[in-house]
């Protein structure tokens, strides 16, 4: 068994080295100035390192390192967080999670293979304009036509929407039930418009479907299965953004503790003032709590625990309420340099803030947890 942990450590260390060499934090501002995000060749290299196949069973061409692919993937997400690297890790992972769970996964074998190889990029379009995260209730419609469907409606806040070859969407079919489709973004009747976002290197887009005709082979799973697939995709997305956020918090905390030790005021290090130490102590508590609930949620989702959604929601809401608070404290403890463009803190703050409000705000998750507890807990 010791080999397994060594292999996991090697896998993570390789990812770290790759990220440091090819996606350094110092490149962010340039990349942003050029309007860039990630390049396709880079993503193929990441795929070669094994990042894309972790949620895919071996018979479909995937495989994990530790025996728990989601844990391996979460470890990669945490490494990405350390340097807030770009790249479509969670969109591709979420789409793969949906495809491999679908009853008709064989029908999508070619797409799955191309996604694992990094030759194709897919994204999940879960949101629609003007409303919160409600992936189970698409407004987009899929009307039956001969041999397929005609799509009408709009998705937005789609990560890598203008770069992805494939987009996974849910739409209401003729009887009102939602069904998922994997659609080529170059299909006729699709218009993709970039949406400015808060992150410097993660790009989002709106995707409009106007009488877009798709073949019946685009269907993912069955109507009966759609709710469970969307649940799974949601949980995967949530634990990955949480794992990435944990990496962010690790990085800003280390940066801030080092700063507080090295920076002197009135002849003594900032870190010797009790007012500062107590704040760093609270931040340390939040960091460990974020790590603990994220690891717990990853395990629950990996095990497909019946309460996995609630655990993912607890992680998402806790991190949503504490990650930004922690980073803002780091900014405060850095003083004026913390609010400058040249300092790296805002790169981390951007990513954490982005994730806070995607895939459900803390309040939305609190309400969902309340509802879940209310339906399982008999009132005394």
């Amino acid at each position, binding site marked *: 068994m010791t080999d397994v942990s060594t292999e996991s450590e090697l896998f993570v260390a390789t990812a770290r080295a790759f990220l440091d060499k090819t996606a350094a934090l110092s490149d962010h501002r340039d990349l942003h100035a050029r309007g860039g995000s990630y390049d396709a060749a880079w993503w193929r290299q990441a795929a070669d390192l094994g990042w894309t196949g972790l949620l895919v069973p071996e018979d479909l061409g995937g495989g994990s390192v530790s025996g728990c692919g989601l844990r391996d993937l979460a470890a990669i997400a945490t490494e990405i967080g350390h340097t807030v690297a770009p790249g479509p890790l969670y969109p591709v992972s979420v789409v793969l999670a949906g495809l491999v769970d679908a009853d008709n996964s064989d029908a999508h074998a070619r797409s799955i293979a191309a996604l694992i190889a990094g030759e194709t990029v897919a994204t999940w379009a879960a949101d629609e304009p003007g409303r919160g995260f409600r992936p189970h209730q698409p407004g987009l419609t899929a009307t039956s036509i001969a041999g397929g469907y005609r799509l009408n409606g709009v998705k937005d806040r789609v990560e890598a929407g203008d770069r992805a070859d494939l987009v996974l969407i849910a739409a209401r079919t003729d009887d009102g039930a939602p069904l998922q489709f994997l659609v080529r973004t170059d299909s006729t009747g699709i218009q993709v418009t970039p949406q400015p976002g808060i992150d410097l290197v993660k790009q989002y887009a709106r995707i409009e479907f106007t009488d877009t005709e798709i073949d019946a082979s685009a269907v993912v799973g069955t109507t009966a299965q759609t709710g469970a697939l969307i649940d799974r995709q949601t949980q995967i997305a949530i634990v990955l953004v949480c794992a990435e956020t944990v990496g962010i918090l690790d990085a800003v905390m280390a940066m801030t*503790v080092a700063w*507080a*030790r090295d920076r002197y005021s009135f002849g*003594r*290090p900032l*870190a*010797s003032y*009790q007012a500062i*130490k*107590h704040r*760093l*102590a*609270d931040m*340390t*508590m939040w960091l*460990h*709590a974020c*790590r*603990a*609930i994220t*690891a*717990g949620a990853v395990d629950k989702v990996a095990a497909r625990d019946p309460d996995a959604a*609630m*655990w993912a*929601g*607890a*992680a998402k*809401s*806790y991190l949503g*309420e504490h990650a930004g608070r922690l980073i803002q404290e780091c900014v405060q403890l850095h003083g004026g340099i913390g609010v400058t463009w040249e300092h790296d803190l805002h790169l981390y703050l951007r990513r954490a803030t982005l994730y806070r409000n995607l895939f459900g705000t*803390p*309040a939305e*998750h*609190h*309400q*969902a*947890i*309340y*509802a879940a*507890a*209310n339906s399982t*807990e*008999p*009132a*005394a």
Partner: protein
Amino acid sequence: MTEPTVEAFAASARDWLAANMPRLDPQHPPRNGRDDDGAWQRARELQRRLYDGGFAGICFPREYGGLGLDLSYQKAFDAASAGYEMPLILNVPTFTICCATLLDTGSAEQKRRHISAALRGDEVLVQLLSEPSGGSDLAGLITRAERDGDDWVVSGAKTWSTSAFAADFGLLLARTDSTVPKHDGLTMFLVPVDAPGVTLRRIEQVDGSNEFCEEFFDGLRLGPDTVVGEVNKGWDVASRLLYHERRAVGQGSEFASGRGPERTEMAAGDFLTLAQDAGTADDPLTQDQIGRVLARRMVRDKLIDYAGRGMRSGELPPAAASIIRLFHSDVTYLEVDTAMAVAGPLGVVEDEAHLLRAGRRYLSRQTVGLGGGSDEMARNVIAERVLGLPREYAADRGVPFNQVRHNRL
């Protein structure tokens, strides 16, 4: 003798619990107030049943009356014991703090006698540490134990001793040499609480409870066998005790048996019921607030597991117990504040909904941030011993205790 598997142990525990332990009835919660003498008597009886049934002291060594099994067995037993009345009030401080400290630092005779007596339900142990003269500066205490032949004679006062009125023995930290710096002149004693020379008074708290006590020592005579550890090495013993206390207060001790809320108002489903009673169960704001409490409790449970694993594996220093301790305050403040918010006006003026308890609980909100070392001390420990930041300046460091400045009052 080979150990049973965890599964086999859990199965036999389930059978035994069903046959021997009283089931909890939500309509008629058991007496479990820490200030209730009857609750202590009941806890001793239940502990005796556990001992006779072979389920006491799961993680304590066999030679002292325990089962010598690891945490996985204790957790399996905890899961099995949900829904049964358990002697939960013996967990803190008797088992998780006092017995755990004796296990680390006591003499063979002390361990044999007191740990097994506690596991049989015959002895309740408490801590006699804090003093009226000071709070967080524990090592600055002034209760004296002076040599008289082979014996010691104790004079002084202790306070904030949880449940001392119900106890048989207490771990008492006293100054045995005031000519050396404060940490170097302390000795820990294990004292009978009902001995001549001890006067005990109960402290009434703002919520009407009186579980805490104050003790006055005047000529209390102790034999040499009452010293725990070595003379003038009492701080080493106290440090172990404080370590166990932080873990216990944060619910991270392997020596606690049974789980579930000691306080009935913290029972599962409490907040859902509260919202129904307050008539706000359909209000999205209330649902947000209560959902936050439920999420925070889930975070706490995972943090306890994670930090416990980290400390056992050495990835986290022992001082990381203070993270659990501080989070316990964080959760409790959120619970108390949320209950107050949800109760609204019903929490301050009683009506048929009976929510005045939420307001009363709010009045003693800070007890969680003061007991087991204050929140501020926990923050110091995290900053200095988890992060390794510079220590606070102390005017008494390295100074003989009898030259240190004390209270002006």
